């Protein structure tokens, strides 16, 4: 994968990491993360995975609709915008978003639900996304 100046700047803090580097970041860019986004932790995991440079997000559940009370994509208080795909595009236009196929296994997030307090959803979604990214960046090529 060729590295534009923008790409170098965007992922500068990842490339510094032991276990990631430029090769690991390229692996993330070539990978697909499958995320169940019916719950809040899943929505946040998807957003953090997109920011971190996963190549494709395959979403299962109510991704098309705007998640209620989801502040990450609100332009102003009370304005819940756009839905997850647009929230991803606004953050990282390099990420492709598609619907997950029924056979694809989603990354595991314990006890995720739509009414999870945002603090708990962040902790669970962030941890699940971080574990997935590290495993993906360090996996042996098949």
């Amino acid at each position: 994968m060729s590295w534009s100046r923008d790409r170098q700047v965007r992922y500068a803090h990842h490339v510094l990491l032991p276990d990631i580097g430029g090769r690991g970041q390229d692996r993330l860019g070539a990978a697909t993360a499958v995320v169940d986004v019916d719950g809040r932790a899943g929505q946040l995991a998807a957003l953090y995975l997109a920011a971190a440079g996963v190549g494709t997000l395959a979403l299962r559940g109510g991704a098309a609709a705007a998640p209620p009370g989801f502040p990450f994509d609100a332009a102003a208080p009370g304005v819940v915008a756009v839905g997850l795909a647009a929230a991803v595009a606004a953050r990282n236009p390099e990420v492709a978003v598609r619907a997950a196929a029924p056979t694809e296994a989603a990354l595991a997030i314990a006890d995720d639900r739509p009414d999870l307090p945002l603090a708990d959803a962040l902790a669970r979604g962030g941890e699940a996304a971080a574990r997935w990214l590290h495993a993906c960046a360090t996996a042996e090529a098949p």
Partner: protein
Amino acid sequence: MAAVVVVGAGGLGGPIALAVAAAGRPVVVVDDDVVELSNLHRQAQFTMADLGRPKAEVLARRASAGARAVVARFPDLPADLGPVAAIVDGSDDPPTKFAVAAWARARGVPAVIAAALRYGGNVFAGGPGDACYACLFEEPPAEAPSCGEAGVLGPVVGWVGGVAAAAVLARLGDRPPAGATIWVLDDLRRGGAARTLAIAPRAGCGCREAA
């Protein structure tokens, strides 16, 4: 309702401010930086359209109608700050963390101090009279790598920030926890276990002399 002051509007301050505001608390976001492209791998509260804008203003607008932005560097706070319920540090700067702890002690409010680096982090939480951050860490390290120098895996800040937000909301709840605590979120590469440790006051700490 008294506000929660969030120092730093970046990787940790973002999720902390949004989660505290979502729980119905007014927040005051303090940060003098602007959004840069190198922030976006972890600061999921910002979009490409926010590049170049003051982080505190963007984050406060996204958090809630009652949120306030202070575009300044802690402890440079406005005179009309109003009542404060607690302060949370999400900065990337050890001296600021100690300054936030001292400010909380002087004001008699709970402090939550969060740090994330590479694949893990920690979150200190203590109320007035509890052991303080300096009881635990004594003084800022002579050399501490920042996220900019050592890197951080993007979603780790969501994980640590979520734990920090839950910690400050618990301190402000009906039954606040007794005593100071630190959550140690181990490096994910070594399992990433979350451990909670109780912190006892340290004899000779500045907070004990004042008491």
